[in-house]
């Protein structure tokens, strides 16, 4: 029936709008450090004729890029570093770490990064190095080890600033699964070419749905206006 069809098409337009919003955000963050893209797919539930958008966090590895800055830290492999914020612990994929005025290791926003025991890492002055296993060395003496944890993608909520809230308590990553890379930055895992393709498909599909809606509207118009007229 045309009215039902129009409802279905309206839901469909809503789906493509969400998809376009998600894609626009992915593309806007193509230069954001360690950004993880959202992928949108449609699912049709058995009891509903409408497609519903399903968003999946794509945790695939981004390309690593050398910066030469010693405190730029990237993770190779699954997992996250942990930062202590005002609102509790948050996960992040590394990036430009720094030292605050009193020598604590913090993220870019000045919130302390935690070690394997959940403690803040304070560094005495000296030459800083970070080993692949996350051990932080000052003048070759270990002062702590970065905590690297993991959580399932569907239990993570983005909070901006590259941070994630874990809905279930994160667990330590398997030994050797993840290496900490010093002097590197992880790039966004957003493939620009694929992004453009998706964008084009979304735009065309949206137009097609609008066109279908107009056709159905025309049918309704005929039914209302012309049928029964002699």
């Amino acid at each position, binding site marked *: 029936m045309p009215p039902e069809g129009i409802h279905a098409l309206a839901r469909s337009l809503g789906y493509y709008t969400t998809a*376009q919003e998600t894609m626009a955000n992915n*593309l*806007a963050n193509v230069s*954001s450090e360690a950004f993880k893209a959202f992928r949108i797919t449609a699912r049709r539930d058995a009891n509903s004729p409408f497609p519903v958008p*399903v968003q999946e966090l794509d945790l695939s590895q981004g390309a690593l890029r050398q910066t030469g*800055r010693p405190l730029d830290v990237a993770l190779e492999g699954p997992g996250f570093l942990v930062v202590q914020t005002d609102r509790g612990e948050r996960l992040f994929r590394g990036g430009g770490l720094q030292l605050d005025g009193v*020598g604590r290791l913090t993220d870019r926003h000045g919130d302390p990064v935690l070690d394997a025991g959940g403690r803040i890492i304070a560094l005495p002055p000296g030459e800083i190095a970070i080993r692949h296993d996350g051990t932080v060395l000052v003048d070759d003496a270990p002062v702590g080890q970065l905590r690297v944890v993991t959580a399932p993608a569907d239990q993570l909520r983005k909070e901006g600033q590259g941070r994630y809230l874990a809905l279930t308590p994160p667990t330590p990553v398997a030994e050797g699964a993840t290496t900490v890379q010093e002097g590197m930055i992880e790039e966004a895992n957003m493939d620009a070419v694929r992004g453009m393709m998706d964008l084009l498909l979304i735009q065309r599909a949206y137009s097609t749905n*609008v066109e279908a809606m107009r056709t159905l509207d025309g049918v309704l118009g005929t039914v209302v206006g012309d049928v029964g007229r002699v």
Partner: protein
Amino acid sequence: MNPTLRTSASGMQAQQTMIDVIANNLANVNTTGFKRSRAAFEDVLYQTIQGPRIANASGGGAVEAIQIGKGTRLAAIPRIHSQGAAEGTGRSLDLAIDGEGFFQVERPDGTIAYTRDGSFGLSADGEIVTHGGYRVLPGITVPPESGTLTVASSGVITVQQGTAGESIEIGRVEIARFVNPSGLLNLGENLLAETEASGRPVTGFAQDAGFGRILQGTLEASNVEIVQEMVDMIAAQRAYEINARAMSAGEDMMRVTNEILR
């Protein structure tokens, strides 16, 4: 109003900033002691929309979430304090630091600024000053009618005096290092200032533990690599275009929507 237009605009702005930073790096490819910067971006707020409920076997269910991001923003423009190449000049008052440390200079207002640019000269009074005329700490005066001036790698300055060519020590250049040199504030004129982020300066002498050595007759070249900057510029330009395309796709969807009603 379709919010994606603003999302895409933030992406375009980010790439514009990227180009600005690259342009400044490239403009300073020949600036003594210059340290390149790199724009770092991060995602911003997410609007979380409750998704559909997925029923599981026990009758309960989890709620999926859809998170709509609102674009990107500049997180920081960290300076990269990697060593620049040493360029020999042969001038006796051209100094470079190989390793950690900054020369300290006194500005006219009495505050101390820090620099890696060691192209020094002498003031009318014989004091060692930067080419901007600021006194180099701890303040070293070269006596008149001195002969050859020598700066040792430890920073000790000696001059030859008299016809016998006797060497006398006239001072030692003091240098400073920071816990977080990326946190120093750019003042222009190749000068940097201490901030809360950089931490307090630790002063000492060249070749002390943790400090670099001083090279005489040498200047530290800019650490900008032209090829790297060019590659980054191309990437930024393409990313700008992609965001412009995303914006036009969003705009097109709005236009099409307006055509539903005839």
